[in-house]
């Protein structure tokens, strides 16, 4: 009887720990997702019905043992690149990714011109 009691006490925190691990993972993933109802908020920050559903879905998928990539890909398939805060690099987004580099080059040109002028 004593031993059973001891074992149960040992198992309970393990279970809680596993749940906590999943919860932090849910937060980590949902921070990278844009809430489509209240744009400008991440799904983690939002309490809209949609955001709650997605959080629940992420948790369910994690419990089923799915990987982060699979969850991101599923949501991307359903809502497009727009739902991801990290914009993937492809033909339609390459300009956005190049923009900072273009700005730096333009700025450098200005600086070089200025130095030569002086």
């Amino acid at each position, binding site marked *: 009887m004593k031993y059973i009691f001891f074992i149960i006490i040992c198992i309970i925190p393990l279970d809680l720990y596993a749940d906590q691990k999943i919860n932090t993972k849910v937060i980590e993933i949902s921070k990278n997702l844009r809430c489509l*109802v209240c744009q400008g908020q991440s799904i983690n920050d939002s309490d809209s019905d949609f955001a709650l559903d997605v959080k629940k879905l992420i948790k369910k998928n994690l419990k089923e043992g799915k990987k982060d990539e699979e969850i991101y890909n599923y949501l991307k398939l359903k*809502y497009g690149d727009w739902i991801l805060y990290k914009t993937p690099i492809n033909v339609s987004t390459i300009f956005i990714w190049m923009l900072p580099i273009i700005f730096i080059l333009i700025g450098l040109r200005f600086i070089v011109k200025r130095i030569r002028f002086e």
Partner: protein
Amino acid sequence: MMLKKKIVILGISTLVISIVFVFVILNDNKHLPSATVGSTLDPIKGYIVDDIKKDKILLNSKLNNEKFLINIFSSWCAPCRDEHKYLLKFKNSNIKIIGINYKDSKKNMSSFLNELGNPYYAIVDDKDGYQSIKLGAFGVPETFLIDKKKNIVLKQIGPIDDNIYFKFLEILKK
């Protein structure tokens, strides 16, 4: 003299760029990206309204070779009441509608449908919202048009109004 010219050019280009940005934002705001348009419909499980037993069956096989609508609705959603008359009109023109009952209780749903009339051919329970996510929806009401090959052709976010009703009807009758 040169400096003045430069400032004028800079001012004009800033103005032009900001005007373009404002127009793009104003025009684009209503058209949220709908990634599922063009994709094939996933299997949907629900029950046919006329079926007394209300057994859940795979609806995809029941709707072969015809165009139909999928409408996400809820008894607590006010815009759903506004668009209800259009759904009844669709039903009267013999178009089947699958209703996805989003986060609702059965009791509230049946009193909602008793009050306003039932336009649905089949109803799918969506208590946890997963079915809506499967369709790429993020609120109520939303309406999808499915073609004969089970592809999602058109999507309406928000209630149906006169314009959208005719837009849907045009494609349905094609």
